[in-house]
């Protein structure tokens, strides 16, 4: 498929979306920089341009991928393996400046052993030293809910964990295993206690990056796109100067700034979902024209400047 054909589709002139897509093909993009909660965009012209545009000395960059849904093969994307490979190629393209990749869940579609095998094989292709994953609800569909943790489980507790990287404290939360009827994502009391202990005693100046599958914030309550006990967790994180929360689950870019917390929802590498409340069928795989699919899938690159409140987030489509 020639991606350039996409740029001429439609009759309404060059929309912003299409302009962005064109830049993607030309190897350029927009870098969103959030300083004090005010987003500003900088046109990128390549790695050198990026370094000059928005990355002060000492910034480190990591990549977020999400919702690979390996095993899904319906009409919204009959080739999730292909799009996952493209995503990995994209990540490896910036490997020189990326030591860390996080996957915010729904690695597989149905938690089947073959799907996890296929994922493991593909992830071997990631040229990074650190790869951290959390499960989505699609990764804990096996009866005993152990398939994900057998491969990627770590530490004590029930799968949640934290680690430090380049002065930034990462917290990997699980909000897909404590559902209640009529409810939404949930962390549960045990995890909340752990989080309180984990953050206690850390300097408020240390940047926090919090990973979850389902949004911690209320992206859309009617579809369960929120975490019902997040307000309690906010008590523990609100004293930190820089808090960045990254999630997957909803397969689209959404962002919100609330006080000191910046919430970013990422694209999937498998298929898009409707915007909150859009359409009549609820959330779920959204079929877009085949030649447009890769423009709504992608990966995210995040730059953090340690000991500052500066974070920049750059979303790049597969095509």
């Amino acid at each position: 498929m020639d991606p350039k054909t996409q740029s001429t589709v439609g009759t309404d002139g060059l929309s912003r979306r299409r302009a962005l897509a064109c830049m993607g093909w030309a190897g350029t993009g927009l870098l969103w920089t959030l300083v004090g909660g005010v987003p500003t965009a900088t046109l990128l012209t390549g790695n050198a341009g990026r370094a000059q545009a928005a990355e002060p000395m000492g910034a480190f960059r990591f990549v977020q991928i999400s919702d690979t849904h390996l095993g899904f093969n319906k009409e919204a994307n009959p080739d999730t393996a292909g799009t996952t490979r493209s995503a990995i190629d994209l990540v490896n393209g910036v490997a020189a400046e990326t030591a860390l990749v996080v996957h915010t869940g729904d690695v597989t579609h149905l938690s089947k052993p073959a799907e996890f095998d296929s994922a493991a094989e593909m992830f071997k292709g990631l040229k990074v030293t650190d790869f951290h994953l959390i499960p989505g609800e699609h990764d804990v569909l096996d009866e005993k809910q152990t398939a994900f943790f057998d491969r990627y489980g770590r530490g004590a507790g029930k799968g949640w964990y934290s680690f430090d990287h380049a002065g930034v404290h990462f917290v990997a939360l699980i909000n897909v295993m404590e559902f209640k009827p009529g409810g939404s994502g949930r962390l549960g009391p045990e995890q909340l206690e752990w989080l309180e202990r984990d953050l206690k005693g850390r300097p408020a100046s240390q940047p926090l990056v919090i990973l979850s599958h389902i949004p911690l914030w209320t992206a859309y309550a009617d579809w369960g796109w929120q975490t019902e006990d997040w307000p309690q967790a906010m008590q523990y994180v609100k004293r930190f100067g820089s808090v960045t929360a990254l999630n997957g689950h909803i397969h689209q870019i959404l962002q919100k700034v609330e006080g000191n917390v910046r919430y970013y929802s990422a694209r999937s590498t498998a298929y898009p979902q409707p915007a909150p409340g859009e359409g009549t069928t609820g959330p779920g795989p959204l079929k877009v024209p085949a030649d447009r699919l890769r423009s709504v899938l992608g990966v995210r690159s995040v730059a953090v400047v340690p000991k500052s409140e500066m974070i920049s987030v750059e979303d790049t489509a597969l095509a």
Partner: protein
Amino acid sequence: MSVLRRSPFFALAALVLALAAGFFVAASVQAADDHQVVIKSFAYGPKEITVPVGTAVTWLNKDNEVHTVVSKNGKFRSSALDTDDSFTFTFTEPGTYAFFCSLHPQMTGIVTVVAKE
């Protein structure tokens, strides 16, 4: 006069309503072997059903998304139901059985099981 004229109409209306209500009760308490709940557009249809003891209820997923059927009090739990997959559970005791989708907990429903007459 107007009151007199209206009363037969009301009597008739009441009769129709009573018949309709009776029909719906009869329709919702179906035969023991053919009760189906269709999962479509992130909802169970019908959301609430009443069946006699001994009924096997089958949930059929017609959505493009994976769903599950999980009893709130742990009485039954389906595996992940992909498109066109189904799950059947036979209710052997009267009671109220609330269920939900463990992937999309906003999806809920109730099976009410009544004793056979």
